């Protein structure tokens, strides 16, 4: 536990509550209880599903999602944060859009930080100019994922369609310099998704960014979004035959993570990018009411009964990316190999 947690009774109480929640949640998952006095430890709040890039591995970029585009409104956001602040560990401000496009993203970070939450977001860095970089660094954001997806201009722009390699590279390098210069405590993770287009560059990418001022270099495995999109599945480096090597089990996300779309709709995980199986709406009574609501419970029951009929679950292999432990938190939503930067220096 951090020192600041120990000296602030409110933070200490929350930390103890979170710790106590872990074994209860683990037990309810292992026992397949659809309803237990637990709460999500990681809450994904989609600030927006609008994006300025057309990435080849993303349903948003491929324009195959049919749900409406929008930005989370401020009253909804604050009501979510106010409710989850006493129990959640982390709030993640990205899902299916570029969070820095949200006109109040800095306010959103500051609001959550003021309530003691760990806050992180992932950005394509196209909008991370100097002014935005300074505002992000001053906001208190805990972790930022800087998505680069390519060592060379050719690869980057092939994967991140509409992105400009030089601009993004410049934005990221300036951001890292400013972080160093200002002594910011933010954790800056440079990220590359390993797919057929980038695979040959991954090693060189790690080598290049380890020597930068980034804290971590992430090599993220391709998410096939439950095998729902052939174009994306075709980008897999290894032959995706759908075999996870382990027996199918209920998806832990249903017991650990809460994904809230910009319009308040709750979904099972990021594979339900199009909200084809909405599990409720936090506007109807709040996050916990939805978390323990009828649709959420029904979904858990389906999984417990071995019924993976929801569209995003049928061919999913990503459910096996992490397994809950009695005293550990949930995964981070992706399968990531994290390499500490400058670790050999």
């Amino acid at each position, binding site marked *: 536990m951090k020192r600041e947690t120990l000296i602030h009774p409110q933070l200490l109480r929350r930390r103890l509550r979170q710790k106590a929640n872990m074994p209860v949640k683990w037990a309810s998952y292992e026992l397949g209880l659809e309803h237990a006095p637990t709460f999500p430890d990681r809450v994904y709040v989609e600030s927006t599903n609008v994006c300025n890039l057309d990435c080849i591995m993303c349903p948003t970029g491929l324009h195959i999602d049919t749900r409406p585009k929008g930005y989370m409104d401020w009253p909804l956001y604050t009501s979510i944060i106010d409710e989850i602040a006493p129990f959640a560990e982390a709030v993640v401000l990205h899902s299916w859009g570029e969070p820095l496009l949200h006109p109040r993203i800095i306010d959103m970070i500051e609001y959550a930080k003021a309530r003691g939450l760990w806050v992180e977001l992932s950005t394509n860095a196209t909008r991370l100019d100097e002014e935005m970089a300074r505002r992000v660094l001053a906001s208190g954001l805990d972790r930022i994922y800087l998505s680069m997806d390519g060592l060379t201009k050719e690869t980057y722009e092939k994967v991140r369609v509409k992105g400009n390699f030089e601009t993004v590279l410049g934005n990221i390098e300036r951001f890292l310099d400013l972080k160093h210069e200002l002594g910011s405590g933010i954790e800056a993770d440079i990220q590359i998704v390993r797919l057929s287009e980038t695979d040959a560059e991954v090693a060189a990418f790690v080598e290049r960014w380890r020597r930068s001022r980034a804290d971590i270099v992430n090599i993220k495995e391709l998410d096939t979004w439950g095998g729902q999109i052939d174009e994306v599945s075709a980008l897999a480096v290894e032959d995706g035959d759908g075999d996870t090597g382990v027996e199918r089990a209920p998806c832990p996300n249903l017991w650990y993570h809460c994904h809230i779309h910009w319009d308040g709709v709750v979904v099972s995980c990021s594979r339900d990018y199009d909200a084809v199986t909405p599990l409720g709406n936090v506007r109807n009574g709040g996050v916990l009411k939805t978390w323990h609501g009828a*649709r959420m419970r029904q979904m858990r029951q389906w999984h417990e009964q071995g019924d993976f009929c929801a569209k995003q679950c049928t061919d999913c292999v990503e459910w096996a990316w992490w397994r809950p432990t009695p005293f550990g938190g949930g995964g981070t939503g992706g399968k990531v190999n994290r390499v500490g930067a400058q670790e050999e220096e």
Partner: protein
Amino acid sequence: MAVAESRPRNLTGSAPGAASFRVEWVGERPWWLDAQEARAELDGVEPGGRVQPAAGPVVVHASAAALGSLRGRRSPAERVVADLSGAERLSRREARAARSADLVLVDDERRLRLLGRDLPRPWALLRTPVDLVEHAPIGTLLERRDSEVKRFRRLHRLGGRTLLYAGPYRPEGGLHVLLDLAQALRERYDDVVVAAIPEGEVDARYRDACERRALALGHRAIVEWTVDDATRPLWYALAHVVCVPATAPVGMRPALLAAAAGVPFVGGAVSPFADLPRGLVHALAPTGDADALAAQVELLLAEPARARAAGDAARRAAEAELSPAAAARRLRALWSGLAAGP
């Protein structure tokens, strides 16, 4: 509803061909009496007209909430109308006052149950008019609220053929029946969406059971927990069919609003739907007969021209039966008959 002054208001007038009478309002005065078309129908009776000297009997029109205040102030010359429209409950004192009224007025026959076992004195039905400007067919709404309608449709993904349930979230409303029907229909019509909005009581456990059932339909099943006055007309107007497979008496308002929106209504053959004039309601299925209900709904889904014709007929019936002018005419006739004596 506009709230009337707390002191009784005197309205003076005379109905054509009837004796002069004076109307005193006690309690709430219905909003629709202020609609221009209603005022025209009540010309000479409504305030603002030429004030007549009090002559002939007095008609006291009391809303349910104000019935208690009538006690002890009646004179033999007064005729009392106890207006129970919109009332959900009555105190014993109010019920007693209603039972002693010369006429009990209800917007829905179910309200008579509020009076307990005693049969009420003569009663009359006066359906609360619908605001036919607010509740209008989709074409009309698009002219006035274009961007709002489009945004609403996108937000709720109502692009497909929408079956709207509008009724209580209670077993007798039959939302579960409609969800099952939608599930079956999806095999033939993959764009079918079922949306539910609460009109009346909500049983949270029943709603939860419906939510569970709805999960199998994914985003093509919408169960709204609340609905506000601003969006209610949009739900109706964007529906393909409004369907309330009720098995016991429920509120009639969904059928009226569907008609106003120019959308065909299919319901269970129970009161009050069964009592509504032909045209307002497209079809009623025998209670509990899911196959008959499915056949009626499918007919409308399969034949858009038939659905359009039924919707147009419903709107015409609504304009004839549910406008403030029609209600004002009926109310004036009721007052007049009462004033003329037995």
